[in-house]
């Protein structure tokens, strides 16, 4: 009797890593941005690429983090970037800003400074003149968050 119990225990142990791995895979698939992106695009498909978000890898202070978002686009009268929406994974208000550009912008690039509530992933979704959506992101480590405490 004890021998079979031990066997069962050991076989259960052997399957443990597989269980953990499948849990991690499930978590990776549930994208925290999915509902937000749907809100921005109205359900239209979003392709990864063309959008670059540049931030420092590590921000000492989340109250003001420099950020550059750019889109690979010729910015001509026919092919230009209509808008760029910046999304945060952890901020209490996840939509940081929406920038509307036009064919007269010349270059699809915006630089600003953002507040970040902790270490997180950022996603930028761009809409081009033909109506297609593209996205790109960045990961920022924030040692001291904004938004949380006083001041």
């Amino acid at each position: 009797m004890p021998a079979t119990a031990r066997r069962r225990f050991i076989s259960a142990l052997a399957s443990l890593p597989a269980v953990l791995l499948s849990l991690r895979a499930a978590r990776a698939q549930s994208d925290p941005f999915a509902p937000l992106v749907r809100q921005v695009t109205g359900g239209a498909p979003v392709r990864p690429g063309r959008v670059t978000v540049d931030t420092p890898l590590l921000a000492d202070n989340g109250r003001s983090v420099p950020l550059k978002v750019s889109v690979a686009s010729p910015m001509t009268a026919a092919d230009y970037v209509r808008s760029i929406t910046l999304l945060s994974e952890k901020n209490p208000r996840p939509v940081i800003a929406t920038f509307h550009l036009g064919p007269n912008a010349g270059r699809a690039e915006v630089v600003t400074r953002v507040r970040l509530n902790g270490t997180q992933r950022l996603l930028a979704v761009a809409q081009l003149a033909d109506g297609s959506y593209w996205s790109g992101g960045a990961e920022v480590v924030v040692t001291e968050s904004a938004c949380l405490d006083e001041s």
Partner: protein
Amino acid sequence: MAARIQVPKQARRGEVIEIRIVIQHVMETGYRLDNFGRAIPKNVINNLVARYNGVEIFRAEMGSGIAANPYLQFYARAEASGEIEFSWVDDAGERGSERASITVVP
């Protein structure tokens, strides 16, 4: 609301120019409390528009995720001499504006 804008004084026709603006504003998130423990109401510059000779070239809809004293840098193609005008409004309804002129040489 004090603001500082940087627009090149002169540009060649068709040149892509860099435009920068910084506005003095607290960009209050609405999550902070005052000394009596009451919530300070949210007050951010929610809309900023840049017009080049009356034509909109850039618009930003912002939330509390933009840092205090919001800074924006963007680009425009210099087409004709004239004015670049900025106007913005915050949640309290306070408006601000600033303008700069640019000379375009062929």
